């Protein structure tokens, strides 16, 4: 019987939530790696039993974990992330040059085709790849060595590479997003990269339309339309229909266009989801209400989804990697909050129920649709 496996990373461990395709009864398994920050857990599209996890700690650094049995057991794999060559410098918060320094893995993106190939987005911003199931890691240094690299500066959360999107129709093309540098694209399998931020406007930087320096929070793509990307920026929800060459704002009637996650309906490429947050200085839901907003028109026109979500005294955030969709016929949408709740909708967002309410603060949510 088909089903879903929700992979949750939290401030104090990982949790695996499983259900059959009805998604009514959930088994909650965890914590795995209790006490550690789990920035991201993601399964291989090519082999759902292969799962990778980023386990990190301010005391003990970065650990990488791999499962070959769907998360029942785990083994540590390579955790040596070394920038290629002389790392050079980027800008620090005070505008001074600062040597690139590895801190942690924010995001793991397994290859669409090979379970042993996985990409890692790290802080300070760089892209690494393993082709041996995580045992060894090499930097795709063309990104960090882009001529604008020395101008990149961290966002409040650190200078992280947090989004990696593979083009399912073009193996040579990939997109990444960095806070606060912007979106970059490769068309040669990661050797060279260029910024694709034209159309973004950020009032928080000296030149609001600069080539780089934009605090992109997340981007999302529907696999059937790889030319179209949706973006939640520090402020503004954006879209492009030419693979990043030109972006336009689609914030429309959102109560606020600040937020972190954005995702696309699994079967409707023009249906997208965001969770508006009050402001860049007040990282919680506006008006004390937990509302997901859905657009069925690819942006501009949005509706609040509230059924089953608390509508008073809610002051949580939903972080950039903490929303995901499954691929079942009646689309499932999932998100986790900094208050430790994980909510699921099995009707594309029309109604929601909590799977679990009291986990540690949720950092990431991913979903595997199991055969």
């Amino acid at each position, binding site marked *: 019987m088909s089903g879903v496996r929700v992979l949750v990373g939290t401030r104090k461990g990982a949790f695996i939530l499983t259900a059959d395709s009805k998604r009514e009864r959930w088994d909650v398994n965890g914590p795995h790696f209790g006490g550690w920050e789990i920035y991201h857990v993601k399964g291989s599209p090519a082999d759902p039993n292969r799962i990778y996890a980023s386990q990190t*700690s301010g*005391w*003990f650094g*970065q*650990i990488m974990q791999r499962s070959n049995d769907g998360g029942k057991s785990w083994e540590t794999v390579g*955790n*040596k992330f070394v920038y290629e060559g002389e790392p050079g410098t980027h800008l620090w918060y005070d505008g001074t040059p600062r040597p690139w320094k590895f801190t942690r893995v924010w995001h793991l993106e397994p290859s669409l085709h090979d379970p042993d190939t996985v990409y890692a987005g790290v802080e300070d911003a760089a892209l690494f790849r393993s082709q041996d199931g995580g045992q060894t890691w090499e930097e795709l240094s063309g990104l960090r060595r882009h001529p604008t690299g020395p101008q990149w500066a961290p966002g409040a959360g650190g200078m992280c590479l947090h989004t990696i999107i593979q083009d399912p129709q073009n193996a040579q093309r990939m997109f990444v997003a960095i806070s606060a540098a912007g979106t970059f694209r490769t068309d040669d399998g990661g050797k060279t990269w260029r910024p694709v931020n034209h159309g973004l406007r950020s009032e928080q930087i000296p030149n609001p339309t600069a080539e780089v320096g934009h605090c992109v929070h997340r981007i999302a793509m529907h696999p059937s339309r790889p030319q179209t990307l949706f973006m939640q920026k520090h402020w503004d929800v954006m879209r492009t229909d030419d693979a990043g060459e030109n972006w336009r704002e689609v914030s429309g009637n959102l109560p606020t266009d600040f937020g972190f996650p954005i995702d696309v309906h699994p079967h409707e490429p023009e249906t997208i989801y965001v969770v508006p947050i009050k402001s860049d200085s007040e990282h919680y839901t506006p008006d004390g209400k937990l509302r997901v907003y859905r657009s069925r028109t690819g942006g501009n026109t949005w509706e609040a989804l509230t059924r089953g979500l608390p509508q008073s005294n809610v002051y949580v955030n939903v972080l950039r990697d903490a929303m995901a969709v499954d691929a079942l016929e009646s689309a499932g949408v999932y998100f986790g909050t900094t208050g430790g709740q994980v909510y699921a909708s099995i009707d594309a967002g029309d109604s929601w129920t909590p799977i679990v309410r009291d986990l540690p603060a949720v950092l990431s949510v991913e979903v595997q649709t199991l055969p």
Partner: protein
Amino acid sequence: MIRVVLPMHLRRLAQVSGEVQLDVAPPATQRAVLDALEASYPTLRGTVRDQVTHQRRAFIRFFACQQDLSNDPPDAPLPEAVATGAEPFLVVGAMAGG
């Protein structure tokens, strides 16, 4: 035989309980002990000191014989009581955070 006490998270990571015992050729130094620790438990590489620079991680401390050895040179001899196994070498996660 040198006795090493690891913090709970590293014991769990290395899948050991209680003290770790290591054969270390003299002279016993921080570097020699950490080299032997990482050789016996490769999963601990990078958790106590940087894998490239070998600098102690900022929130890790080394104690022994009621002394803080954290800032001693890595090639300085450890106290005789540690070298003989009479006293353990303590790897400690600094008190910080929640």
